[in-house]
């Protein structure tokens, strides 16, 4: 039992997963289950003037065709970032108002999926269309005045006076999370209780959001989100179909299932908005970075405000005495964009870390040495210390593993045995180390079982593993009989699991709960010597169980945050804490090979070294990093939503045309951890991992392409057309 290093341990739910026994929302078996299908809006923006449902209703097996007129008295659950609990404030089907492509205008419920789908195709909506702008850079977009986010020194003056200057524009397309699990809701209304099965990172928001929307007492709503088939930010709040399905189940008195078709999800769920970035960097005559000005525009919807925090990391990656940043929102006619893995940090790092590479090249310096030379020792923004910052260790260890010393600096100077152009690139990444309020309830029983309920959700990141590892580090209990309840509103209050704060929030309270169980046992035992494990000791003490409940929150947060936790509202804190600032850090080293004829780009090798504090679950942490690198490769080279501005919809709205990486795209990924605990942030020493591991990968790829070819690509995804 030690916290110094955690043993390698197989993923606790893997046995069920490899047998197909894990139940995701759409797998919920319920008798008399009816099937629903949505009818998407045929326009982008305007008003529904008529809806013809007769043909659908007349189809044998159809149980109901619901339109907005069936939702009288239902309210929007509100926007997550505006005091509400849904991914956008606009709840479709509450009125005749249409504000984005593909929003549902009707919900068909039938005995079978085939019937529901066929009937949905017969519903005809007539609309009054209004002009729209559905993509960045289109006529009709509304650009808000710039809002300054960070200002240190006098960046404009320092940049103007700099000896070497970089002024570069970068762009990032809209991208979609596309978790493999389709967004699905199964709703059952029985005995005055609404039971929802939905893969969500935020079961609490679904519970309280539904209660608010439907006028129910929250105690009447139960949400089960025990397993998610991936989420990546897209499932971070109440979805727009949830209330539709719930209402249908209540009206019909039967359980109803809706699995949203993949094509519709490109218009009915959140996404990473498009953004454009201008980065100006200046170096003095000695090649020292003295000024950075970072300006960015990010797509938003008309109604809701998602504030980009691009500069939260770029202001701190380096010790730059003069830094200024400002962002503008670009309002467009889309569903509200939201969070997709490293939502702002990945695009920001692509822009900023590309520009840093450009400045290193312009000043004739090795890009690794350049980065190390500008390593910050205190937070340049607040002047506070970092709770821990091992970025330099990441860079040095990663460089060793990668073999950076063998790199020849001149672009185009390296070739492999097949004549391919070889490029080696590096980039750094950071991501806030945030924490949310969390509650853990731990019951260890004499009968050999243990139950641990905690605020948190298992999306595949391995939270259950980290929890088990923490319990096993402190308690002698039977690991095979631990029931870990996450994502269950009936177990403990559930907070949004996102922003890489899941483990850092759950593990400290789980750890504390384990320590309190030990303490309680010690009190029971008194001076008696006892052998055996905890279960056996309880049996000898004739105690059926010990139960403790522990709550925790981020450093410096008031206890009032528990009120938000208990009401399904987000309440995370960080990265700026009263006495320090906290970030996780990453260094990525990438090798690309570019075919000299077609300019095809391949990524045979990546080395990523991470500072995420203590690594509690080594095996799943390793997988998290590999996955994040795959995401970085996808974001850098593959993924873009293609939007025809005349029509306003995503054209490549399926997995054949929205190209995410496949197995053949991925080569070797070597993962390293610094694995030193951050004991200022929390007693478990844990910082976040899932997102920082992606931050900087795209820039490292772009930097490697520059090294291979001398061509600097500033637009994502970097594709063939940019190379020829």
């Amino acid at each position: 039992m030690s916290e110094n290093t955690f043993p390698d341990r197989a993923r606790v739910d893997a046995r069920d997963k490899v047998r197909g026994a894990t139940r995701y929302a759409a797998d919920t078996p319920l008798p008399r289950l009816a099937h629903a299908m949505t009818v998407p809006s045929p326009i982008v923006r305007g008003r529904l003037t008529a809806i013809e449902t007769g043909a659908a209703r007349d189809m044998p097996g159809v149980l109901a065709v619901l339109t907005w007129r069936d939702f009288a008295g239902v309210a929007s659950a509100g926007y997550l970032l505006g005091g509400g609990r849904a991914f956008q404030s606009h709840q479709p089907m509450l009125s005749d108002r249409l504000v984005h492509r593909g929003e549902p205008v009707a919900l068909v419920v039938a005995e079978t999926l085939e019937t529901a789908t066929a009937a949905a195709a017969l519903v005809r909506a007539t609309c009054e269309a209004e002009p729209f702008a559905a993509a960045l850079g289109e006529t009709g977009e509304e650009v808000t005045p710039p809002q300054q986010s960070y200002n240190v020194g006098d960046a404009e003056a320092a940049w103007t006076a700099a000896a070497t200057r970089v002024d570069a524009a970068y762009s990032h397309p809209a991208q979609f999370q596309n978790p493999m699990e389709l967004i699905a809701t199964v709703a059952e209304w029985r005995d005055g209780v609404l039971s929802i099965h939905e893969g969500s990172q935020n079961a609490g928001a679904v519970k309280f959001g539904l209660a608010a929307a439907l006028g129910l007492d929250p105690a009447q709503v139960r949400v089960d989100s025990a397993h998610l088939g991936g989420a990546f930010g897209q499932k971070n709040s109440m979805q727009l179909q949830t209330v539709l399905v719930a209402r249908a189940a209540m009206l019909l008195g039967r359980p109803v299932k809706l699995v949203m078709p993949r094509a519709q999800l490109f218009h009915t769920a959140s996404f990473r908005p498009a953004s454009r970035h201008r980065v100006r960097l200046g170096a003095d005559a000695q090649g020292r970075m003295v000024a950075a000005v970072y300006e960015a525009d990010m797509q938003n919807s008309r109604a809701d405000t998602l504030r980009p925090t691009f500069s939260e990391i770029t202001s701190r990656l380096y010790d730059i005495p003069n830094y200024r940043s400002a962002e503008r929102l670009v309002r467009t006619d889309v569903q509200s964009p939201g969070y997709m893995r490293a939502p702002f940090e990945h695009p920001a790092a692509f822009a900023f870390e590309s520009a840093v590479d450009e400045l290193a090249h312009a000043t004739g310096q090795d890009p690794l040495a350049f980065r190390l030379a500008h390593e910050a020792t205190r937070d340049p923004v607040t002047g506070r210390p970092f709770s821990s910052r091992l970025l330099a260790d990441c860079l040095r260890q990663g460089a060793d593993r990668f073999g950076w010393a063998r790199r020849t600096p001149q672009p185009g100077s390296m070739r492999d045995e097949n004549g391919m152009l070889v490029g080696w690139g590096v980039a750094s990444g950071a991501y806030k180390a945030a924490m949310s309020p969390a509650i853990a309830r731990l019951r260890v029983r004499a009968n050999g079982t243990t139950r641990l309920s905690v605020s948190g959700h298992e999306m595949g990141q391995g939270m259950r593993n980290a929890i088990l590892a923490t319990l096993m580090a402190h308690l002698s209990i039977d690991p095979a009989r631990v029931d870990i309840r996450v994502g269950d509103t009936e177990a403990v209050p559930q907070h949004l699991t996102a922003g890489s704060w899941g483990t850092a929030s759950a593990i400290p309270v789980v750890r504390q709960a384990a320590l309190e169980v030990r303490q309680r046992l010690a009190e029971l035992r008194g001076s008696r010597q006892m052998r055996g494990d905890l279960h056996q000791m309880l049996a000898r003490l004739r105690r059926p169980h010990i139960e403790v409940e522990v709550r925790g929150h981020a450093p410096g947060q008031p206890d009032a945050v528990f009120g938000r936790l208990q009401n399904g509202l987000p309440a995370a804190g960080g990265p700026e804490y009263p006495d320090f600032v906290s970030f996780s850090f990453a260094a990525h080293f990438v090798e690309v090979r570019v075919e000299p004829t077609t300019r095809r780009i391949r990524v045979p090798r990546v080395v990523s070294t991470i500072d995420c504090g203590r690594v509690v679950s080594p095996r799943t942490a390793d997988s998290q990093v590999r996955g994040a690198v795959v995401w970085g490769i996808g974001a850098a080279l593959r993924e873009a939503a293609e939007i025809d501005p005349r029509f306003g919809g995503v054209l490549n709205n399926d997995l054949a045309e929205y190209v995410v990486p496949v197995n053949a795209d991925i080569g070797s990924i070597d993962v390293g951890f610094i694995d030193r605990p951050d004991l200022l942030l929390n007693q478990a020493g844990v910082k976040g991992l899932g997102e920082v591991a992606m931050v900087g990968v795209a820039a490292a790829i772009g930097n490697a392409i520059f090294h291979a070819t001398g061509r600097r690509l500033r637009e994502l995804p970097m594709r063939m057309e940019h190379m020829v």
Partner: protein
Amino acid sequence: MDDDPAGVPPAISPCLTRREAGLGAALVAGLAPAAAQAAQATPGATLRLVLRVNGKAVDTMVDPRTSLLDLLREQLHLTGAKKGCDHGQCGACTVHLDGRRVASCLTLAAKAQDRRVLTIEGLAPPGGALHPMQQAFIDHDALQCGYCTPGQVMAAVSCVREGHVTDAAQIREYMSGNICRCGAYTGIVAAIQDAATRMREG
């Protein structure tokens, strides 16, 4: 619902009908408990379909439109195969049809007439040891969220049986029909290399 928090459904649209719901099929002893509920006529289930699923005979009525995936999931309650795209673009629905891996979402259920279907639920005997591929997926952490995993495992077993495991590059190519958005690809390749050895020994 505002006026009725206790939840008696109010009177609603006239289009609502109360048809008797049948689970629509499948009296198959031991296949899945829910499937053994009394089958009643489901609207549209006009085709009689006889096939073998995981070694057991199935005799059921299906809608001609039904995909093999929806037959397995919604009628036979074998929910291991997953719907990730419903268009043959992701591989999450992979099952074996007469011993070959196919995308069950893009296979008409009617095409399984008189044929053998193997799903993840039938890969290893219930309660017994795992198939070597399943064990290798655990050992190499070749999964994260687990949603694509049944399809990956079924594809991987075929990949070995087809002989497409000469080297990592060949495995990658022949596993590219199974998208893993969590990005467990390196683990999947390692698991297949490991299991290929164990399957040959076994």
